[in-house]
């Protein structure tokens, strides 16, 4: 299996805050990789650096064989991203927003694809409603559709489940599990440890910008520990260090 994402010694400093502190990890093709960590541990920063939205202050990251610092644009052409703060432009309708994404990404059959997503995530009745008038969950559906509409080889998704109701969460979890079966890769940041344990194949734990752990989820099962217990003890220990 080849590596789609290779991070080495990556650091990001904002003024006097070190959001990422020499993080190294790699993600294999076809895996569903979970990035875990308490609030402010650097997960969102990590996703932004990987997709070239911000530049690292140290180290480097290769994404789909491209250097994130200098080839961000080409990376964003090929991956799908759900940003942390879902923010489709307020005055486009949902349909227009997906058409906008399609026009930027040059997807010829965008309307058909959009219709499929409206059906799949059950928000076809909101097609012609302005984004600013959508509920939070519906906006999140739209951002989800936007990230996967071009079937990217790699999707980096920041807390995609947080605003969904339980039924929608189930639907989306199934979608993600199926998605990686076709050989595509997902890089997911989440606080919901049960979800991570249920769907991820490997995971990493960040704490105060530092990588505390990285490895397959199956290893934990072998040791007979639950992800949530493991995470909590790791972070508490890390907190004292």
């Amino acid at each position, binding site marked *: 299996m080849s590596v789609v994402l290779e991070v080495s010694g990556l650091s990001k400093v904002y003024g006097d805050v070190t959001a990422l502190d020499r993080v190294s990890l790699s993600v294999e093709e076809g895996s569903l990789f979970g990035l875990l960590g308490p609030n402010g541990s650097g997960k969102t920063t990590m996703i932004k650096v990987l997709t070239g*939205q911000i530049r690292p202050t140290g180290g480097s990251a290769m994404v789909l064989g491209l250097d994130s610092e200098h080839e961000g644009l080409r990376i964003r052409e090929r991956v799908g991203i759900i*940003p942390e703060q879902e*923010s489709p*432009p307020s005055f486009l309708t949902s349909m*227009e927003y997906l058409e906008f994404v399609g026009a*930027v990404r040059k997807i010829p059959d965008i309307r058909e694809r959009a219709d499929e997503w409206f059906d799949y995530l059950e928000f076809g009745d909101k097609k012609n409603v302005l984004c600013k008038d959508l509920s939070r969950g519906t906006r999140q559906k739209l951002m989800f559709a936007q990230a996967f509409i071009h079937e990217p080889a790699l999707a980096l998704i920041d807390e995609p489940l947080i605003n969904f109701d339980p039924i929608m969460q189930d639907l989306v979890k199934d979608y993600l599990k199926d998605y990686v079966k076709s050989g595509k890769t997902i890089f997911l940041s989440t606080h919901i440890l049960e979800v991570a344990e249920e769907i991820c194949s490997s995971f990493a734990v960040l704490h105060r910008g530092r990588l505390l752990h990285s490895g397959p989820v199956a290893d934990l099962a072998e040791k007979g520990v639950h992800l949530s217990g493991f995470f909590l003890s790791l972070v508490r220990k890390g907190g004292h260090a």
Partner: protein
Amino acid sequence: MPELFMRMMKEEWRMHSTIFGHVSFALFPFMIFGISFMGSFLLPHLRQALPVGDMALATHVMFLVLGAMVGGFGLMGNEMMNRRFGQASLLAYSARSLPLSGKFIFANFVVKDTVYYFFLWVLPFGAGYIAAAPFTGAPFSSALLLLFTLALAFMAGLCTVFLLSSVYVRSRAVCGVMVIAGGFLLLASFLSTGPTLALLFPPYMLYSGFSWGMLLLSCAILAAMFALSILLFSPDETGTTRVHGDLYRPLVKRGTFLQQSPLVAKDLIDLYRSGIGIGQALFSFAIPLVVIWFFLSLAGSFLPPHGLILLFAMISGVIGSTMYTWVTEFDSFGPYACLPVSVSTLIQSKITTCALLQVLPASFIAITAVLSGNSADLIPAVALCVSFSFYASGVMAYLCGLSPSVLVYDVKVLFTYLVFDGAVFAIFSAVSLAHPLYAISSVLLFFPGWLFVKAAMRRWDAVDPAGL
């Protein structure tokens, strides 16, 4: 009141200062002070060129316009901040979740804008004039009075906009009627009696001849406008969930010849549906221009017959170029960050949108030319206007990237902008005064304009977008 008010002041300060550093921003009032201080020494010379009293009138009207523009921007604040900083929106809007009435918050907001921009613009300007008084021989008392009447003029602009906006939320029709009636009144009185109406502007009257009665009247008018706008203010959003037809696809199809049609189409829909387009066209374009036309025409007797319209065309072009600030102000890089869009692409698309919007100034100047009996100069006027606007927006894009409305308070940026625009302005004033047809040569400005845009794209791609 003091608590919320102080916090709003701090917020405004942080908003400006975080983006380009406290020092740079703190220098801004000093620069205004310097300009006015040095300007005071030029006054005697200007007086020889302009009829006595017109300088004072022009300054008052400048502050009236400034007040209107500040007010317009303040009102768009919510929409802009939401887009720029995500959910972290302005106190004026987030304070709705606190147990405070909407009118109370709005009143705080208006007072905050008045006080904040008083310290930023009005006070330094007046202080510069006062400081120069001992050297220029201007009577100290009249300098003090000027500071006061300028503040009144500024507040008049601010209150007019707040009043109009309060009315607008209640009824667009009434607001429209008010604006049209006001404009008509100005025009009619101008055509029949010349500039005398402007001389009736209370703060100016107060300056040219102080009397307690006038002072009372000016303050009463302001207080009435302020009270009325707060009384009429309604915090309820008028927008209900309405269903909208698909405008996007047809628009992109129509614009395929444009390089960035997907982004341009989005911007145009955004401007149209959010009302920012109409609001800004009114507050930062039409109103200032009507006022400027008025003043230029005062100086008309000193210019050759075609001079007035061509000068006005250049000014309209420069004001038209500020449309670049609106198209960049109402969204940030954020929503594009998850798409394969770079800062340079965005700059290019914003320049394109801005260029399309120049239909507005171009037709404005064409109509003015015809109405003022200068049809012969129609083509040079439109050429000047459009070229100036393209050039000036290119300069702005180069200097400020995607945040012109904030960076304009950076002294270095503003200074460079003024030098670049001023030089071209001086050259083409001379050229077009020489012969109206020479003004057509201004289309040459498209070339440096285009170079500036290219340079802007290179320059701002190299900057970390997180820093914007």
